């Protein structure tokens, strides 16, 4: 008889749970179930809470791009606010002033401008490094802030840019939409079809709910995309570059290519998230896009553990979500909003100081402690092994 040890075959469920996407899908299901509960009429899911989660999702998309930049490529940028704002304002301008542009075109425009921006900043990053780069991008973001405030025709200045209808789901309510621009008869004919009406002619509340669901799908999809990119040769090349740019170059990794790529990822995600923000919230003012926003994104990513996507999501939840989701309904916090901000500030300081690895490190500590406890209990119940 052969003296081999046969491990018990893992069940399919266990294997599926161990798949790296399981966590992402779990988050997606949680977010979806909240919306479903709200549709079914559960009282505790308020619309302000759902909006809070939507903003967390939008900002976490920014965070995934930033994760690539900071966690993989090791580059710091404080220009995030400007990049997100640009995406939001381009989307706002096109949807409001140029209704004949289809929604996909709007997104494409936001992404294309982000590409140009990413290439520009990428080239700057070849000349200036480290914290200096962060400060330079901070200056860049300030220029965008001035543009958001002062270019009235494009951004409507400090009054804020707004759109009246949800894109996609309220297509038929817009008589100048791209479909009508192509063929007005077809537009009016299609608008009569009940099936299409149900999708493209929703009431405002239904449109918001549908967009929320779309947002969940996009968030989970982008999480998977970012995860895969991180595990690919691109991600490994960037990690090499982060640890030592000279060694990476010696191994044949092109600094130019991967720095550009890292910045492209971050600006594209930021621009896209900006467009999403505009589409969901239908409103954006320049004060959203100050230096505080860039710092908040950096904080969210650092809190999460800078390379962990679920961590990034949780970081965004702490930084952006605490107020609208949990604390707004408690009268004490609503009247003393400064307490919340001080709490968030303290949380950031505490996590950065005691868990430099972020929430991931905290989670591992918990897991370890739990295992130790379980081992102790086994010892207590079954006695010491011989």
């Amino acid at each position, binding site marked *: 008889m052969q003296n081999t040890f046969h491990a018990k075959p893992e069940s399919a469920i266990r294997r599926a749970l161990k798949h790296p996407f399981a966590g992402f899908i779990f988050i997606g299901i949680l977010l979806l179930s909240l919306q479903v509960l709200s549709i079914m009429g559960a009282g505790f899911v308020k619309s302000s809470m759902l909006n809070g989660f939507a903003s967390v999702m939008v900002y976490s998309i920014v965070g995934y791009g930033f994760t690539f930049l900071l966690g993989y490529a090791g580059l710091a940028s404080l220009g995030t606010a400007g990049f997100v704002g640009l995406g939001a304002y381009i989307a706002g301008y096109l949807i409001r002033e140029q209704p004949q542009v289809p929604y996909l075109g709007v997104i494409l425009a936001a992404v294309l401008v982000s590409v140009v921006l990413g290439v520009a900043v990428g080239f700057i990053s070849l000349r200036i490094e480290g914290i200096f780069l962060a400060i330079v991008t901070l*200056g860049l973001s300030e220029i965008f802030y001035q543009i958001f405030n002062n270019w009235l025709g494009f951004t409507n200045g400090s009054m804020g840019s707004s759109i009246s209808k949800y894109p996609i789901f309220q297509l038929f309510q817009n008589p100048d939409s791209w479909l009508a621009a192509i063929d007005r008869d077809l537009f009016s004919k299609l608008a009569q079809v009940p099936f299409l009406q149900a999708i493209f002619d929703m009431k405002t509340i239904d449109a918001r709910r549908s967009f929320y669901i779309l947002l969940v799908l996009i968030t989970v999809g982008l999480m998977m995309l970012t995860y895969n990119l991180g595990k690919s040769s691109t991600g490994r090349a960037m990690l090499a570059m982060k640890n030592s740019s000279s060694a990476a170059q010696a191994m044949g990794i092109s600094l130019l290519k991967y720095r550009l790529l890292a910045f492209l990822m971050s600006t594209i995600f930021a621009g896209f998230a900006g467009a999403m923000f505009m589409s969901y919230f239908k409103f954006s003012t320049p004060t959203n896009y100050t230096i505080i926003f860039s710092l908040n994104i950096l904080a969210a990513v650092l809190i999460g553990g800078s390379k962990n996507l679920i961590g990034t999501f949780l970081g965004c939840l702490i930084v952006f979500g605490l107020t609208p989701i949990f604390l707004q309904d408690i009268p004490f916090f609503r009247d003393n909003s400064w307490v919340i901000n001080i709490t968030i500030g*303290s949380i950031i*300081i505490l996590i950065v100081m005691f868990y430099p690895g972020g929430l991931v490190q905290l989670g591992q500590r918990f897991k370890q402690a739990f295992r130790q406890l379980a081992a102790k209990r086994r010892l207590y119940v079954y006695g010491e092994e011989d």
Partner: protein
Amino acid sequence: MTIQDILQTILNSLPMIGRYALVTMGIVLIFRTTATTNFAQGLIATVGTFAVTWAALEWTALPLWVCLLLGMVVAFVIGMLVDVALIRRARHITPSGKQMITMGVMMILVNVTPVIFNSLVIYNTQGRSFSQGIHQFVFLGMNFNITEMGLLGFIMAAVLLSATFAALKYTKWGLGVRATAANETVAQMLGVNTRVITAFSWALAGALATVGGFFTGAGAPLSVTLMGNAQVFGFLACVLGGFGSFPAPILGAVIIPLVYNFAGNTSIMGPNAGMWQNAVTFLVVLLLILIFPNGILGKKYIRKV
């Protein structure tokens, strides 16, 4: 644009140069000794300025310069506390992490200040100032004017900065700062008490910036965003001049206000100059930084492989 116009614009920049130089000095002191980009610098100065104004209005019998000293002491203590309680314990953390800690401090201060100095914020209170007058003089047959407060601020900044540089060069503390800036571990091994050095650098940075904050805010309604621009321009001044030495960033702090005031000059930039003043300044400064990536006075940094 006449020569008088140019000279007057330069003259208008002087108060700003003084204020920014004070803030920048603090940023570079902190960066060199503890490798932290301090985002709370402007806020510490703001708290100091609030304290000055509060003292000046509460105890009207007190001379204003005593109030200013009191505010400086407040900022001195806050700066020292930040280092002792947080930054000193975060030595092993990456620069981005430290940056995040100062950001947390900033978040706390932004929200605590309006609560503590509630009366100042609600009533849009104006603080006392040393003088409201405008000084006029004739130079080379041309008339110039400058606010007396601005002139005083510039002179005060010049005196304080000269004193700081003298201290850096000739005192034991200055030697310690320079040693810590060069290499903290080695300085420690050679018997420099780096804890005292860093704590005092943080404290001094806060006190200097408070003077800048006072001259920014005196005679105008206070808000917590008082030093927002000074903070960002202070960082840019450091990068523009070069983080490598102590005097270089001051050069940046001289250039930026000049650019700012020329960008805001309607006879050069057209009638909308004021609207785009900030944006143009940032653009020019960014271009200058791209031309001098190591700073104007910075040395090229050669990396060992």
